[in-house]
């Protein structure tokens, strides 16, 4: 294509009308220039399809890299009306004194997930997850963990960092999907914040395996739970808590029924920073009160031991998809005289040991193919199964301690309706009817209402959620 002869002729006068030394140099330059031009001329020209294919391959490679990152999140804004101002509540926390209506951003989550490129067996061997929660109460870290998958079979996974405790079904069930505004009272008391710091090992067949329906997971955790907005969750003792869970999930051959069962165990505890351990026993008057089980308990470990079973069932039939979920937990919980909540920081008061049980049931009915879903939920939490009704709060004999409001059982019915505006937006209207155990031995006091009757502590929640 290039006219080499023309170029040589054009420059002949300039290059060759000089002395021999210069002539040698110029000849070399000329040959070099011509060689370069010639090389360029020989570069194969890509046809438009090859160019397009090459560009598409380049774009695909960039898209593949971007696809390894996933952003997700949701914002929940809600309006709540309480039965009475300043009431204690497990429906998104206590109402402040004098407040019976409030608007709040319950969750403002943003989650970043990165999956490493799949290996030659199609297994992504590592995952990075970081989730933050931004609300009017501040900024908190919810998840910060890595997930490593074995590169040979994809069956074994190691998770380390801060993540949901692998206990039961409700703890790991995202509140963006959960049908009731909050988890049951028991879940909130035993596992505040749902998450904990630790490491777990899980075994589950790959998606293509016949054993994919079975999963076993176990790990060691601090036991202090995740940090709240106001306090960190640095461990305060050297004991680590064990959490184990085995679960099975299957679908019918017709793919119209799905069912699952699970069993979980928690074996842990925390260091006591005071001298006395109390447990329920009969005092000199024959009443069940807290009596000293062990003196010089300081430095010993107060036990938290739970076992739980759970089941889930969904069926797609004429009225729409029906789902039933249930979970029962029982065990022993160490707490204080006024609380059975699992501690996030060192406990400097005496320790009170209690046997507890609790459960929840969800009944969920999608109304045909409409975007409406009916929600009915019932849960109970009995923090002290050894005392009930008027036994609670009875005057204690010398050397013993009375039971009190921390030993009251609660039963909660919830009724709600969910409207799914579209695949991102959903609106929930929900009514919590809370019924507490009553005792004539817990009359009115300056710091709390009377438990001689059912408290005025029902809550209506209207929640708007946008999920991305």
């Amino acid at each position: 294509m290039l006219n080499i002869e023309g170029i040589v002729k054009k420059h002949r006068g300039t290059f060759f009308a000089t002395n021999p030394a210069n002539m040698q140099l110029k000849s070399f330059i000329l040959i070099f220039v011509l060689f370069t031009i010639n090389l360029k001329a020989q570069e194969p020209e890509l046809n438009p399809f090859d160019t397009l294919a090459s560009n598409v391959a380049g774009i695909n490679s960039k898209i593949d890299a971007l696809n390894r990152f996933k952003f997700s999140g949701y914002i929940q804004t809600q309006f709540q009306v309480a039965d009475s101002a300043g009431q204690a509540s497990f429906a998104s926390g206590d109402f402040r004194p004098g407040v019976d209506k409030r608007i709040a951003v319950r969750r403002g989550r943003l989650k970043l997930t990165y999956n490493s490129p799949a290996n030659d067996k199609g297994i992504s061997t590592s995952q990075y997850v970081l989730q933050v929660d931004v609300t009017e109460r501040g900024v908190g870290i919810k998840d910060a963990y890595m997930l490593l998958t074995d590169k040979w079979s994809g069956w074994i996974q190691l998770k380390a960092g801060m993540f949901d405790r692998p206990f039961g079904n409700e703890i790991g069930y995202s509140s963006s999907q959960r049908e009731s505004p909050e988890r049951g009272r028991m879940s909130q008391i035993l596992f505040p914040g749902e998450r904990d710091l630790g490491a777990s090992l899980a075994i589950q067949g790959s998606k293509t395996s016949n054993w994919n329906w079975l999963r076993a997971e176990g790990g060691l955790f601090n036991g202090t739970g995740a940090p709240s907005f106001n306090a960190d969750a640095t461990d305060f003792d050297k004991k680590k808590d064990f959490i184990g869970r085995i679960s099975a999930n299957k679908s019918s051959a017709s793919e119209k029924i799905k069912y699952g069962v699970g069993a979980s165990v928690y074996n842990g505890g925390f260091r006591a920073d005071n001298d006395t351990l109390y447990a329920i026993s009969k005092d000199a008057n024959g009443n069940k009160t807290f009596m000293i089980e062990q003196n010089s308990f300081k430095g010993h470990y107060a036990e938290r031991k739970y076992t739980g079973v759970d089941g889930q069932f969904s069926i797609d039939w004429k009225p729409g998809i029906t789902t039933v979920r249930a979970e029962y937990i029982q065990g022993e919980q160490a707490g204080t005289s006024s609380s059975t909540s699992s501690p996030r920081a060192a406990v400097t008061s005496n320790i009170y040991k209690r046997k507890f049980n609790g459960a929840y049931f969800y009944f969920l009915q999608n109304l045909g193919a409409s975007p409406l879903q009916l929600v009915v939920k019932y849960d109970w939490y009995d923090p002290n199964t050894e005392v009930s009704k008027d036994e609670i709060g009875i005057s204690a004999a010398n050397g013993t301690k009375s039971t009190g409001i921390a030993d009251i059982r609660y039963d909660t019915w919830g009724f709600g309706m969910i409207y799914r505006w579209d695949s991102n937006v959903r609106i929930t209207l929900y009514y919590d009817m809370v019924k507490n155990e009553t005792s004539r031995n817990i009359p009115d006091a300056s710091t709390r209402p009377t438990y001689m009757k059912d408290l005025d502590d029902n809550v209506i929640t209207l929640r708007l959620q946008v999920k991305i």
Partner: protein
Amino acid sequence: MKKVILTLIAASISVVLYAQKISVKGSDTVLPLTQKVAESYMKKNAGSSVTVVGGGSGVGIAALMDNTTDIAMSSRKIKMDERLKMQDAGRAYKEVIVANDALAVIVNNSNKVSQLTREQIEGIYTGKIKNWKEVGGEDMVIVIYSRESSSGTYEFFKDQVMARKNYASNVLSMPATGAIIQSISQTKGAIGYVGLAYLNKEVKALSVSYDKGKTFVSPSLENAKNKSYPVVRPLFYYYPTAKEKQVMPFVNFILSAEGQDFVSKVGYIPVK
């Protein structure tokens, strides 16, 4: 003149505004059928546009959940997990069977084996049978090809032919049916499975026995229609109820006599 130009512009805008745009995504098995039907549909309906993309049944149903397709093609029934996710996304959907498909087990043309029992196929795909001489062929290692796990064909084959047993670890997963045909045509000891519509002269389809070797039936349209060939499955369209008005003309077209004629031509079994 101005009026004429304005009228023409207004008419053009109206055509563009009312032009039917439908995107269809999913099963590679249903892909060739939908492409043919879409071509004919667009010719008959000026201004309409039907975009057809493959990727596998799972990909199509996921796109339906994400609202990135109007119709999901699937060679398997929607799973319960997917139903629950659709419910959670507030997306009501409808299911239509547009054709039936027979699945053919194929080998390289040079392979002397021409028939296998279901149990033998299961043995090959689970890794128990490793050499063609174990099933009456040459002394040659069996190279097993399969679709990827996101494919409805992969799951149907596992359910119906492998009696829900697990695929062997050395199975080579291919991203598309065309790639299976190509690989098998170039690999002497290869075996794979494809929808009837993909069969061509580059590969050999095996007769299959579901009665432990008493009778072997070849995968043909006729045998699938008369139900003597057992490996037959329905092919589905799933679409959101909210988009029913938009997609029904196209769905009705594939279910019409003309659409079902394409079903036969492409190599599937008509539903009507």
